[in-house]
């Protein structure tokens, strides 16, 4: 089955090979090669690439629903952020009595706000397995309820995009409030360790990087499995002729709903992997702009091609890193220009270039996986 998934997908195969090479090389380059070697990978770079892997996973989640089922979510940051907060809660509980106030149980911000005891929704997060479960359940459940209401009333297209924006915006406002009990404005930070390992140690960083990479590859294969099954063809059918799909006997809403929930869970996992690497989660992750930016990665990489989403996340974020260190004030203009150029000249994104090249070289009339 694995071979069937891989062989039909040349671009994906290349990306997977590159990712695997990265996962193998980065730990060696960081931990084994001496710091003065030209092939050495600094810990800063490890963390940076680890972040990109998480962004790529988020982009994959967005492309799955947007590229294949035509569901444009401008609010996937909601699921990413929730996954991040869940992980943040676990990491906060791990601090224990090492906080500034030294309280044995309560995090600093709760002591500061005169909490007597841990709120009920913070219970259980000292257990890693519980946190892992919640990383998927919390975003999944929100997506289930939200999607159920939206799809059942047949909200789609631009209207759906707008209400997803409203969703992240509402979450952002809620998490900004101190009374919510998630640290308000400052969010959760000052993490010490994860599963007993020092979170700032090189080994931990490298391990988190490798886990992110493996998760991305696993998620990619799962998405491939979905879109190459009949489920995937139903999605394309829904995207192109929703009414026809209904009259062919498919319950369109449940297809959309389960895909949306799956995608939200992937986004949640991405957020959960992101937080220990950057060391902080705050309501900024719920900013509507952040969600729109994630959709831009997909557009640039190539909507409707899963490996394109990964390329998009890496290239846009790579450019962003470069711009914000060299010309910080130009970045937003560059992003805007990039978006306009891609929309005008590369409607199928970077992956579209590869596809065209591939068709030229192999002279195959079809080969389009959509």
């Amino acid at each position, binding site marked *: 089955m694995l071979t069937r998934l891989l062989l039909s997908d040349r671009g994906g195969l290349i990306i997977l090979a590159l990712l695997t090479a990265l996962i193998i090389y980065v730990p060696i380059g960081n931990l084994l090669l001496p710091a003065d070697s030209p092939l050495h990978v600094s810990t800063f770079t490890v963390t940076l690439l680890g972040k990109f892997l998480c962004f790529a996973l988020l982009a994959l989640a967005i492309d799955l629903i947007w590229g294949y089922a035509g569901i444009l979510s401008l609010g996937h940051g909601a699921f990413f952020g929730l996954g991040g907060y869940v992980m943040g809660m676990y990491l906060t509980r791990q601090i224990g009595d090492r906080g500034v106030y030294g309280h044995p149980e309560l995090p600093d911000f709760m002591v500061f706000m005169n909490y007597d005891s841990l709120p009920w929704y913070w219970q259980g997060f000292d257990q890693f397995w519980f946190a892992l479960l919640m990383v998927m359940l919390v975003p999944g459940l929100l997506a289930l309820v939200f999607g159920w209401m939206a799809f059942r009333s047949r909200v789609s297209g631009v209207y759906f995009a707008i209400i997803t924006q409203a969703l992240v915006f509402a979450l952002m406002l809620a998490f900004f409030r101190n009374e919510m009990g998630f640290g308000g404005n400052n969010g959760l930070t000052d993490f010490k360790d994860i599963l007993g390992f020092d979170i700032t140690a090189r080994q931990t960083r490298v391990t988190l990087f490798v886990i992110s990479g493996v998760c991305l590859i696993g998620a990619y294969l799962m998405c491939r499995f979905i879109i190459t099954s009949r*489920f995937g*063809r139903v999605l394309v*059918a829904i995207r192109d002729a929703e009414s026809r799909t209904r009259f062919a006997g498919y*319950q369109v809403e449940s297809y959309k709903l389960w895909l949306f929930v799956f995608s939200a869970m992937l986004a949640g996992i991405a957020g959960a992997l992101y937080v220990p690497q950057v060391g902080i989660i705050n309501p900024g992750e719920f900013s509507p702009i952040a969600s729109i930016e994630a959709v831009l990665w997909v557009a640039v990489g190539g909507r409707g091609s899963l490996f394109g989403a990964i390329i998009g996340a890496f290239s846009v974020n790579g450019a962003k890193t470069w711009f914000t260190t060299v010309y910080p004030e130009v970045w937003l203009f560059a992003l805007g220009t990039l978006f306009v150029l891609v929309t005008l000249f590369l409607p199928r994104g970077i992956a579209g270039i590869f596809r065209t090249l591939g068709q030229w070289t192999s002279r195959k009339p079809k080969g389009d996986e959509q």
Partner: protein
Amino acid sequence: MSLLKDTRALMRRDQVFDFMLPPPDFEQPVDLSHGPILYLEDVSVSFDGFRALNRLNLAVDAGELRCIIGPNGAGKTTMMDAITGKTRADEGQIYFGQRIDLQKLSEYQIARGGIGRKFQKPTVFEALGVFENLELSLASDKSTWASLGFRLRPDQRDRMDEVLQLIGLGTQRDRQAGTLSHGQKQWLEIGMLLMQNPMVLLVDEPVAGMTAEETERTAELLTSLAGRHTVIVVEHDMAFVRSIARRVTVLHQGSVLAEGSMDRVSSDPRVIEVYLGEET
């Protein structure tokens, strides 16, 4: 609200109480013991006050090939929408066989239950191949979970090849459906209907945009389907209707103007006035 409705239904003498009926069960054969397979009574549909269907009555027997004609805007497509659950009737009843109240079901349930439909504007899944279009339509478990692990059985594959031959696309099976000609798309959509293996086929303007030869083959195909399936055809092309019709229903302003054989209908002065007159 529904309590009120149920109580009201109790007062009626002309029908069995709704709540005593078993829920629709498509595993059971449709109950045809008392006549028609499709039965519409006083069905009305309004759009913003405009009555697209106005107390429409129609009964179609199992195995029949029925043609529906009528001028533009007569409500033919709206009637199909009402039967297939796309639009809800404001009043009236729509029954499939004796017992299945179509107004209680949603589109996918009606489709799974055995009513297939071809759209007026040919609608196929353009990004997919011809073969995949048929595969998606194939009668099978169409739940999300089943779709994830779906594999074609050899007998299903044979059936698909058979339908491909029947609709004249045997050599085009891997072609992307969006690149087919208009007439081929029409056929592909009819093929998709056949894959669903429905009891009733609702076919909206099947020969629009077809050449004379294609039209003739479509006529053959549809007549060959009648008997095993119930076929309801909406068409403007009078020559085509004449070539296939046994029984014709004329719609006008949302209700039935006349019904009978083609000869009888076309000699009805009211029909000539509203419809046929324009043609000649």
